[in-house]
């Protein structure tokens, strides 16, 4: 029944509990709060119950025996039990009466009076109810400090001494040492209880701090994960930051703001949507604007480049209550305590985080560390977001450009082809007339020369257009090969016959380096290839050799089997190619601008020939390359997978 009382008076003992419970309420761990409250009240109740049981047992033992003794209880145990019941009923009834200032103290006083009366009537010096004093002292000591406990012990000692000398105990029966021991043990109990309470408190505080640190680390960790996940959604990251911060500080409100670059802060009380800056809160899905007060706080953070902490918004000069933090007007409440943390990017404040509490519960040094860390995370998120945005823009722009280039190439080439057809046809027809005339005159007239000039230029233009279109198609992957089994030797013989007139015209010799036709070695030159495309590659290599080798030079065309491949080469004894150029000549549009080039060589191609050749060879699963030294000629080669031996 005492237990019941203790529980029901839990609120009544508020005097003693208040300092601890306030601290506990501020603790981050609800679990610890429950645990601490239970330990004090439980201990108290346990001791009281134990004391009560001992009193009953002692009264049973002593009842009916006469003579002065420590067990000389002259009251019927039934009456004692009845008294306790009555007392508790009284206490429960009294709970309904509003205790004015110190309900806990009042109850203690009541307890004390009742216990004292029990001692007085149940034996005085010999009364076993002294034990109830211990319980009282322990209960008080668990809740108040050492000095108050000692004061209580002093009070109890005086009262007990007085009661001991009163009736029914005769004065001569009182042993002073025993009395002193009783009072001293009261003192010891009080000190022990206070020390225990201190130990429990210290331990609880430690656990609380650890929990807090662990919680903060967890939050920071989660935040880092969100930030580093590379989410391009900056608003989402801001929303997380706002929510996480308000949770981390047991604050009711969190709000992240990104300023609009190149705009003064004064302008940020415009509606967010129009002005281009970004507000995200954990409460209002669509915050409209910053309040004047928030702008002023942000300005302070920008100026100091450090977190601004406001203990009490009401006392912060010039602030109006509820002027900020959207959605906080509920229940007449508003933000009392604010932290405003700047996001620093390269020495510039790009935004701020507001964390606000309804209660006046200031942010401390420990909070500052976490606030700063959150601000840094936000900065990282913004930086990553901007980088991502930049990258994406760049990628899409370059893709657009490439598509445009392909479309343009394709369009231009098609549109050029039709008029070129007319020109070529006309020139061809005119040349056939002219050739009749020329045969008659036996020398080239000016008109014939002009006509030939047009013809040559047209042909060059056609080659150019075809190369552009070929390149566009190869790059778009729109070229499919018609593979057939070919003997490279045969292909080379035919090509050689085709290009011989071209080389003859420049007084160059064309040598062939091939195995004997029909020999076993000849058969090793079999490949799977698209005849037209491979001929295109060979013609390109040979026309380059023809163009860049001085008149009277030598060109060699050959093929050999090598390492499961058929290696085809075109060798010349021209000026050669500088090492730097060798690396780049297979790139599209690249043209060698070599001072060693003979005067009659001009780069008249599209610069695409070798790039096309490379694409075609690679499409066949082969490789292309060049070996050259300046002044010692060049060897262009390509290798195609061999189709095995003896097949032809």
């Amino acid at each position, binding site marked *: 029944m005492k237990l019941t009382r203790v529980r029901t008076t839990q609120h009544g003992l508020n005097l003693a509990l208040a300092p601890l419970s306030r601290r506990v309420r501020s603790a981050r761990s609800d679990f610890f709060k429950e645990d601490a409250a239970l330990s004090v009240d439980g201990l108290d109740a346990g001791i009281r119950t134990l004391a009560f049981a001992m009193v009953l047992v002692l009264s049973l033992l002593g009842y009916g025996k006469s003579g002065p003794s420590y067990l000389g209880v002259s009251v019927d145990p039934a009456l004692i039990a009845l008294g306790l019941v009555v007392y508790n009923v009284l206490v429960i009834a009294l709970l309904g009466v509003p205790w004015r200032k110190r309900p806990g103290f009042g109850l203690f006083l009541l307890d004390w009076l009742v216990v004292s009366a029990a001692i007085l009537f149940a034996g005085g010096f010999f009364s076993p109810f002294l034990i109830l004093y211990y319980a009282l002292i322990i209960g008080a000591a668990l809740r108040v400090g050492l000095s108050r406990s000692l004061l209580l012990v002093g009070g109890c000692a005086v009262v007990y001494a007085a009661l001991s000398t009163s009736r029914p105990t005769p004065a001569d029966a009182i042993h002073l040492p025993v009395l002193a021991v009783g009072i001293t043990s009261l003192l010891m109990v009080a000190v022990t209880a206070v020390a225990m309470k201190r130990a429990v408190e210290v331990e609880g505080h430690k656990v609380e701090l650890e929990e807090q640190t662990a919680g903060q680390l967890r939050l920071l960790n989660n935040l880092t994960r969100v930030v580093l996940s590379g989410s391009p959604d900056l608003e989402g990251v801001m929303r997380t930051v706002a929510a996480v911060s308000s949770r981390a500080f047991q604050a009711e409100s969190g709000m992240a703001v990104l300023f609009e670059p190149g705009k003064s802060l004064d302008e940020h009380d415009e509606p967010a949507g129009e002005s281009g800056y970004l507000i995200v809160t954990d409460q209002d899905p669509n915050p409209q604007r910053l309040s004047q007060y928030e702008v002023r706080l942000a300005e302070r953070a920008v100026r100091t480049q450090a977190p601004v902490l406001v203990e009490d918004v009401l006392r912060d000069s010039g602030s109006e209550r509820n002027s900020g933090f959207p959605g906080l007007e509920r229940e007449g409440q508003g933000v009392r305590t604010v932290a405003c943390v700047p996001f620093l990017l390269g020495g510039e404040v790009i935004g701020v985080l507001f964390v606000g509490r309804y209660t006046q519960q200031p942010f401390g040094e420990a909070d500052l560390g976490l606030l700063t860390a959150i601000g840094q995370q936000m900065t990282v998120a913004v930086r990553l977001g901007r980088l991502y945005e930049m990258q994406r823009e760049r990628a899409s722009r370059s893709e657009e450009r490439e598509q445009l280039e392909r479309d343009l190439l394709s369009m231009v080439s098609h549109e050029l082809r039709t008029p070129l057809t007319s020109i070529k046809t006309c020139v061809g027809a005119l040349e056939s007339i002219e050739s009749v005339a020329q045969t008659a005159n036996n020398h080239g007239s000016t008109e014939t020369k002009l006509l030939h000039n047009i013809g040559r230029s047209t042909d060059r233009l056609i080659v150019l257009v075809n190369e552009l279109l070929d390149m566009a198609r190869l790059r778009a992957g729109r070229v499919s090969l*018609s593979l057939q*089994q070919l003997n490279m030797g045969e292909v080379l013989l035919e090509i050689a016959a085709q290009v011989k007139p071209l080389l003859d015209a420049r007084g160059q010799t064309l040598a062939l380096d091939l195995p004997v036709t029909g020999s076993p070695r000849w058969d090793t030159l079999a490949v799977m290839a698209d005849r037209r495309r491979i001929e295109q590659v060979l013609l390109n290599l040979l026309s380059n050799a023809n163009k860049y080798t001085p008149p009277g030079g030598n060109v060699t065309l050959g093929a050999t089997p090598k390492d499961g491949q058929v290696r085809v080469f075109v060798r010349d004894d021209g000026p050669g190619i500088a090492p730097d150029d060798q690396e780049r000549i297979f790139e599209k549009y690249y043209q060698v601008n070599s001072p060693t080039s003979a005067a009659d060589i001009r780069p008249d191609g599209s610069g695409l020939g070798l790039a096309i050749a490379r694409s075609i060879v690679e499409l066949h699963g082969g490789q292309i390359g060049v070996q050259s030294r300046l002044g010692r000629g060049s060897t262009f080669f390509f290798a195609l997978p061999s189709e095995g031996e003896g097949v032809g």
Partner: protein
Amino acid sequence: MKILIVDDDPDVVEAITLSFGLQWPDARIVGAKDGRAALAAVAREAPDVVLLDIALPDIDGFEVLRRIRERSDVPVLMISARGEEIDKVRGLELGADDYVTKPFGYLELSARIKAVMRRAQALPPVSGEGQFEAGPIAVNYATHQVAVGGKPVKLTPIEYKLLYQLTRSAGQVLLHDQLLTKIWGPEYLGELDYLRIYIRRLREKLEQNPQQPVYILTERGIGYRFDPSPQVADSALVKA
């Protein structure tokens, strides 16, 4: 000789007309600038050869070709600025005799026209052996008649020439380039698309199941072979 040129660019039509006029003074050249005019001209003029552009303002050149083929076997050369493989294959499949990519030279074009007309007319010389038979397929070399299971099958000149080459060397592999040179000419070396399309047409006309041919066989990457006595106990063959 009458040549129909279908192209929406009047300069191209004029250039070809004038240059052909120089080379073949007796040729009559008719121009058409769109698909409708082309179809009308084919019906009205009965040309000996048609040069047909793909990009026409009203009807697509492929569609024009399809409609021409519905009623005429006149040799058709597709001329196009589009050099895409797929366009060429599509033109040939629709029954074009050749496909020339712009810009072409005057000499090239006239050579192609001559080749097309030669292929369309000339048939291989009459062979002394007279008759070839393999299963249900019968070829009479003397009359150029072909029959499957006793029913006569109508082949175009090129189809017949291809079958002639295959059956004359029945059992042997004929290389791609051999066939191309013999039927189309040496300038068609490597033009496997032509060969592939005509082989498919022959199979459609002669084989029981063109998707799984038993007589006209593909030697992948090498060429084609006619198998005179397929070792297939297939139901398809029994039925045939």
